[in-house]
């Protein structure tokens, strides 16, 4: 873990893209302030018919799936012992740290009575049959675990005198010795809550179109989250490598993309097989809004498999990038459909996020990118230029 092959990128932090991102964060911050001063209705279009809006769907459900890079890679690197992928680990972890921490922030914005949130931690109020309760506790625990997993990056950066003064070298030794516990937790916890995010939809019943509603929702959410985790690692690596002119990790990514393709294949087999078993596949060709969404989704899920199944195409950076984008779009659309677009609460309820609601989400995402940029420039996150695997 700490072979110090990782190093800070350096370079100026206040670049032009950074300033543009900052502007969006400020706009988002303004609306967040309004939400806390004047209440939800001031900024949001959420209603009794649609109590789950953009903040939960984009920032939490899709956001944590994007944050699954660390989880997915840890599974591959530490559980399956594929240490070739280790250079990708820290950036993936960092993505997870921000994906999840800001998902937590989004939940606090979304909770109507956020000041009651601490009651989640009171064992005497625990409702252990609630899926949402499991998600809440699990996500809180995982955010903590992610920061602990990421902590060595801070420790490596600190001047030795500082560490000496606060006795942090002992902490560093402790982390080095027991990191396997946190890595274990870091694989266990997302398995729990990423599948639970699918279980949440089980309560929707007939509100959710039968094309999405299935008892297999937990498995579908888990497998697509893992695939998205690999997708995010590939996207991140490609963009960062190109933006900052780092040596290519193409060989690693090509291998990784095939793992993701395998997961997508599993996803599609389960999904289509389940639709066949339930006799609902006909709905996919009904020609209505739901069938349209389902077909787009399935096409996006299938496209990466078609691209990545051949080794020649897999080695092509352009096609691989397209496959990655398609994969991430498929997973995001699947979540968006399951939580919003394929839901009909009945009684004529309609929902489309309001502009302030969207700007808060945009602000949160921009904040995430800004923090990511700061961290990779100042902390040893990215794999150094001097050593390239293979």
């Amino acid at each position, binding site marked *: 873990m700490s072979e110090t092959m990782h190093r800070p990128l350096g370079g100026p932090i206040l670049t032009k893209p950074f300033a*543009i991102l900052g502007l969006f964060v400020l706009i988002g911050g303004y609306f967040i302030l309004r939400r806390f001063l004047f209440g939800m209705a001031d900024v949001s279009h959420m*209603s009794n018919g649609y109590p789950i809006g953009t903040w939960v769907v984009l920032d939490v459900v899709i956001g944590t799936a994007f944050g699954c890079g660390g989880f997915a890679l840890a599974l591959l690197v530490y559980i399956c012992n594929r240490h070739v992928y280790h250079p990708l680990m820290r950036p993936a972890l960092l993505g997870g740290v921000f994906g999840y921490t800001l998902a937590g922030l989004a939940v606090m914005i979304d909770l109507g009575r956020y000041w009651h949130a601490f009651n989640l931690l009171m064992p005497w109020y625990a409702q252990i049959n609630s899926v949402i309760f499991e998600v809440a506790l699990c996500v809180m625990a995982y955010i903590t675990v992610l920061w602990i997993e990421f902590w060595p990056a801070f420790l490596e950066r600190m001047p030795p005198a500082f560490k000496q003064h606060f006795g942090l070298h002992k902490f560093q030794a402790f982390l080095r010795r027991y990191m396997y516990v946190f890595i274990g937790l870091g694989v266990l916890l997302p398995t729990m809550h990423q599948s639970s995010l699918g279980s949440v939809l089980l309560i929707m019943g007939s509100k959710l179109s039968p094309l999405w509603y299935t008892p297999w929702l937990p498995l579908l959410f888990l497998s697509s989250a893992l695939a998205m985790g690999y997708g995010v690692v590939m996207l991140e690596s490609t963009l960062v490598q190109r933006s900052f002119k780092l040596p290519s990790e193409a060989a690693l990514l090509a291998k990784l993309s095939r793992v993701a393709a395998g997961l997508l294949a599993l996803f599609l087999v389960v999904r289509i097989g389940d639709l066949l078993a339930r006799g609902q596949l006909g709905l996919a060709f009904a020609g209505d809004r739901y069938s349209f969404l389902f077909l787009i989704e399935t096409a996006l899920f299938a496209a990466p498999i078609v691209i990545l199944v051949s080794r020649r195409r897999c080695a092509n950076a352009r096609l691989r990038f397209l496959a990655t984008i398609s994969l991430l779009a498929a997973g995001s659309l699947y979540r968006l459909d399951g939580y919003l677009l394929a839901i009909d609460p009945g009684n004529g309820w*309609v929902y489309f996020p309001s502009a302030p609601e*969207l700007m808060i989400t945009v602000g949160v995402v921009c904040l995430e990118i800004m923090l990511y940029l700061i961290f990779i420039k100042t902390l040893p996150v990215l794999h150094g230029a001097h050593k390239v695997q293979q």
Partner: protein
Amino acid sequence: MSFVDDIDLASGTVRNPDSHEGALGGLTRREFLKYCTGVAATLGLSSFMGLRIAQAATAPQRPPVIWLSAQECTGCTESLLRAYHPTLETLILDMISLDYHEALCSGAGHQAEAHKAKSMQENWGKYVLVVDGSIPTKDGGVYCMVAGKPILETVREVAEGAAAIIGIGSCASWGGIPSSDPNPTQAKSVQAVLPGKTVINIPGCPPNPYNFLSTVLHLLTFGKPPELDMKNRPRFAYGRLIHENCERRPHFDAGRFALEYGDFGHRQGWCLYKIGCKGPETHANCPAIGFGDVGEGNWPVGIGHPCFGCTEQGIGFTKPLHALADVKTFSPPTAFPAVNSPKGKGVTPAAAAIVAGIAGLGVGAGAMALRGMQDEAGKSSQETSSSSSSGQH
């Protein structure tokens, strides 16, 4: 048709309604305690208070009551005669000592008047005065003379020594029918002719007898009137609008109204607001306790007639029967939306622009990234600028 056998009478299974016991409603100790507990519940008190009410009601010294009738129709008394738990007889024979009541006292003329005077003298400061009917004040009150005296004077006289004064019925509470325009006798409420005194008002035309009985028993038990509102009506009975507890309220909220008598909605038992029900502006507990002791739903609105607001000054006998009520809670729109009409907020131009902007940015950034990659695939040493990383995640 079956007849009551002597054997049934002897074994006590059937009580002869004409006997003394039957006339008292056949009140056994158990039934009496149940009644008192029921009164406590009506008053919103703890059920333990039922015992205190029972003690108060059976105290050896029954509190004397003097009942004066002014411009009235005896409807309030008729209403009380139809109370069955207990019957009025139980009240006036066992619980209170009704020393004077024009319609109910056995004596007449000078004898009755003398008895009233004697009772007032003996119980000065302790008796309860009940008045039904409004008090005419024009021309010195000559439009209602009892025993050769204007009732106005009698009321003022008797009120001087009363421990508590109850105005029963809308006439006594706020003037009622006699005070309606053009009010030829300048009829006024009891409170209006007794400035400085507290008159407990039990409005209604007629009022529900149990509101009166419960108030009396509260007085007997605690020696003070129940909690009153700003118009001196007991809160337990007049604290809420009829509209708030009406069994037809869900129809109001859903916009299902009867539009004329006998139409589909009327036969379905829908809300009567649009045919003039005054429930939304009238305070009373009618929907909660009903009338006539024949079970749930037996009150004007329950049987399909709009409330005409008898308990409320300015509504009953004043507003036309078919005029729409002024809804005190919230007014319904003139046209209700259908049950499945669109609710919630949909897309706004700004939101659509933001979504389109994000989509455009995504496609643009993706295209930029791809263009660079083609160069890479062609082994060109050219590297594209770093701008493609912004705005996308």
